[in-house]
């Protein structure tokens, strides 16, 4: 095809549609000015195709490209990273559409749209995005398909492209399953590669967990081998925070070993935990992890850690024993660290602590007195507490009296330390909802929680959840029923949306499978699956399996290509049917016999049909050897052959 030919309008529209389907889903994470620019450019191209506006001159297209690149550099601060890369791609694709209508431009635009589609997967890999990508691919293939058929109508183009995509699908399945999976990255990732994750962090200040609690996003799922533990035992341990500066709690360095520092005991719960990528090492195991979990590390603050940050959704088979006594022997250094308080600040809280510890009360008494203080103190559990000033603990305890779990945990630990007891804040998740469809416990960001741990000589670390004192239903039934009416709360936790919850359960059961089998299909899963098929998972087997399966598919495709011919000549088929029918009645056609001679012989044998037999033979001979009649004539002949009655 000559390069200077303009592509047809139909093809240009397909290309525009493909670009729109690819660019617009990026709107969520691109800067608004860039989204506006892209929409403007796409709209301009649409108007141009409808002859409403003229095309942009080349210098202007180039100018916009340069200006956009500069603005991206300013906005993102750098060029090398996935976010600015995706932004640049989006602008380039839109501009490429405007730049020209040659087939070469169209091809470049199609390739750009493929890259941009991949870019979308950085942010989102749900089923919806997969469907969008499929639609984008289909449209892009339609545009390519149209380049060579300028006059073909749109439905024909779409059908042709759909045929190609359908023929490509089996290859996709085979390669997806058998192509050797390598755990990335192959090279260093840009710094922002994993920025788009939400979850706990290793610091906590007032408001940090309540902010997280507004998110419905799933943090992890746990599928228990048997009955899941009751809600009150479902404490999923995350970062343990020791250092306090009066406002912010921070984690300290811990050491981790291949075996736990405690003797696991009590009933065991086995479960597999599917963790969403959070780019951290902690696994949020249920308190307290059992010994003997392979490839995982036990930190001395009882967290379970992965060897590397979890950068992709991953599955871990775990066991926990919630009733294990922990911290019976704690090192002096740790105990010193969990007693430390800032020298100044929060005088009223310190005075309260002194009252709690009065009369030489023992540790257990101090803890229960403090707990009672929260239970009887008219505290309100709310997601939107009043903001706190410099003496945050004082203000919460005596003035505002309202807070979220981090306020309770923080104040409680402060009181304990001020009363001379070793104590620390533990963050993590609490509870989780059982999905009735597949019986997995789904833990969302809204289940994020903070509680306290107090060390008592002879008892070790004891979990105290002051939130349970102020709002017992939080621990028993979850967040939705425990916070103040009128507080903003996640949509699905509102009672009037039970039907939506039901739908959500089903949807999430499906997405769980999607996550496990499509998104989570990695080296391990591949090994599992191939083992089930009785295959080894070395490169040779995988390569052979890929090659063999792709080869079979290729043969099937070639079979399709050849098959069309055999069924293709309806005239020959009709004639052959005619000969077969004659043969069944005792008169096979001789190999050397032409149609007319054969008909003469048949006519002698079946004089009742002599005329029709001769006509059929002569029509066949005419169509075969002289003029190529249309398909309608051939169909008509074949019907006459079927109707003929050899009796």
């Amino acid at each position: 095809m000559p390069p200077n030919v303009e592509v047809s309008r139909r093809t240009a529209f397909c290309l525009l549609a493909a670009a729109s389907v690819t660019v617009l889903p990026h709107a969520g994470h691109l800067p608004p000015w860039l989204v506006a620019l892209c929409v403007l450019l796409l709209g301009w191209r649409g108007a141009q195709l409808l002859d409403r506006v003229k095309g942009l001159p080349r210098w202007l297209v180039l100018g916009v490209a340069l200006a956009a690149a500069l603005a991206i550099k300013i906005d993102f601060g750098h060029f090398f990273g996935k976010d600015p890369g995706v932004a640049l791609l989006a602008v380039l694709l839109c501009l490429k559409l405007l730049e020209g209508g040659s087939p070469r431009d169209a091809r470049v635009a199609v390739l750009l749209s493929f890259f941009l589609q991949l870019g979308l997967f950085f942010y989102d890999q749900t089923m919806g995005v997969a469907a969008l990508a499929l639609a984008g691919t289909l449209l892009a293939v339609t545009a390519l398909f149209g380049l060579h058929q300028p006059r073909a109508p749109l439905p024909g183009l779409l059908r042709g492209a759909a045929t190609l995509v359908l023929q490509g699908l089996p290859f996709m399945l085979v390669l997806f399953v058998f192509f050797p999976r390598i755990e990335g990255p192959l090279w260093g990732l840009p710094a922002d590669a994993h920025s788009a994750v939400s979850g706990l962090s290793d610091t906590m200040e007032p408001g940090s967990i309540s902010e997280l609690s507004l998110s419905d996003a799933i943090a992890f799922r746990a599928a228990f081998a048997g009955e899941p533990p009751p809600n009150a035992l479902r404490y999923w341990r995350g970062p343990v925070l020791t250092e306090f500066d009066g406002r912010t709690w921070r984690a300290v360095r811990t050491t981790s070993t291949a075996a736990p520092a405690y003797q696991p005991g009590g009933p065991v719960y086995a479960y597999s935990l599917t963790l969403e990528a959070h780019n951290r090492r902690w696994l949020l195991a249920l308190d307290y992890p059992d010994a003997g979990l392979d490839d995982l590390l036990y930190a001395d603050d009882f967290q379970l850690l992965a060897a590397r940050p979890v950068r992709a959704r991953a599955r871990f088979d775990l066991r926990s024993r919630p009733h294990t006594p922990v911290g019976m022997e704690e090192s002096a250094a740790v105990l010193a660290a969990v007693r430390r308080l800032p020298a100044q600040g929060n005088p009223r809280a310190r005075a309260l602590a002194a009252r709690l510890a009065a009369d030489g009360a023992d540790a257990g008494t101090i803890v229960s007195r403090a707990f009672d203080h929260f239970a009887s103190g008219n505290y309100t559990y709310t997601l939107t507490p009043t903001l706190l000033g410099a003496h945050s603990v004082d203000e919460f305890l005596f003035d505002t009296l309202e807070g979220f779990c981090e306020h309770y945990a923080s104040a409680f630990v402060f009181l304990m330390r001020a009363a001379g007891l070793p104590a620390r804040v533990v963050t993590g998740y609490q509870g989780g909802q059982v999905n009735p469809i597949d019986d997995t416990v789904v833990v969302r960001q809204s289940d994020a929680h903070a509680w306290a741990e107090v060390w008592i000589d002879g008892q070790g670390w004891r979990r105290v959840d002051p939130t349970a004192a102020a709002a017992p239903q939080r621990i028993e039934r979850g967040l939705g029923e425990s916070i103040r009416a009128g507080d903003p709360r996640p949509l699905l936790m509102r009672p009037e949306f039970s039907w939506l919850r039901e739908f959500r359960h089903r949807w999430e059961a499906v997405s769980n499978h999607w996550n496990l089998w499509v998104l989570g299909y990695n080296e391990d899963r591949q090994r599992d699956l191939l083992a089930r098929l009785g295959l080894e998972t070395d490169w040779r087997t995988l390569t052979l399996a890929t090659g063999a399966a792709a080869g079979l598919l290729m043969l099937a495709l070639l079979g399709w290509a050849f098959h069309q011919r055999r069924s293709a000549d309806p005239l020959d088929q009709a004639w052959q049917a005619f000969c077969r029918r004659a043969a069944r009645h005792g008169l096979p056609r001789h190999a050397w016999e032409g149609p007319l001679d054969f008909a003469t012989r048949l006519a002698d044998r079946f004089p009742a049909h002599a005329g029709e037999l001769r006509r059929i033979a002569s029509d066949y001979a005419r169509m075969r050897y002289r003029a190529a009649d249309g398909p309608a004539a051939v169909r008509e002949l074949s019907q006459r052959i079927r109707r003929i009655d050899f009796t």
Partner: protein
Amino acid sequence: MDAPQAAAFLPRFLRWNRRAPQPEASPIQLFQRRIYVLPSGAGLAYAAALLTLLLASINYNLSLGYALTFLLGGVGVASLVQAFRNLLHLEIRPAHCAPVFQGESAAFVLRLENRRDTPRPALSLRAGNGETLLELPAASAADAVLNLPATRRGWLPIGRVTLETRFPLGLVRAWSILHPDLRGLVYPAPENDPPPLPAGTGDGHGRLARATGDGDFTGLRAHQRGDSPRHIAWKALARGGPVLTKQFAGQAGEHVELDWHALPGALDDEARLSRLAAWLLAAENGGHTYALRLPGTTLPYGHGPAHLRDALRLLALHGHAAER
């Protein structure tokens, strides 16, 4: 293979590759063994893009990235098979090629037949510099016309024809090389502004005749090659009309003998053929009866289009005795 052997192999291969093609029996059917399939430039760019997508998918652990890459790969493979299928079992029959004068272009007509009940879009036929694009609907046949410059008189074989398609996505080029049994006859180019026809033996007039001579003007007719520029109706042309030749009531009906040997000795063979061609046209246009005498062969007196064709054919094949 040793280096010297390889060195010897290459020229042999090139000779073999450029060998004079043997025309094939008609009809030519495209079976799988003679269809070649390779990625086009666009296909290579596509493959490079897929490789990049695959590396990005591995690097960022993008499961859907793998899926997209593999789907596009599958589409590429399917397009390869479809390109192959677009040519498979196509039938090509050489149809005809009308004779032309040297310097014109010869129109070779090939008949392509699609017996399949699906269309075959985006076919391209190439021979020499001539290219033609066509599309065959389901179960149909169509003529493809390839124009080749006629640079030498004599038989002009169509030679090597490339039938190519980039259907469906342009990522793959499928092609087949054909040598259809089709040749066109190239007459010598008629001399421009030839001298007047030699003297004829008139029907009782017995004087020098000039075909389409300078007698009384009788009318105009369409210009033909070989007409003298002196007789072009320049005034009509200047008014923007077609090129017309003035006709005169000359001494029509004369017997003119066009003799190779009677031409001036200074003319070489091709110049003689050119002049004879111009004279043949002039004689036919002038309504004369004419004979042609060439070394070794003679065409008796006659006139009419068939006679003209025979005469021009003799000129075209002069000296090509073996190819008659």
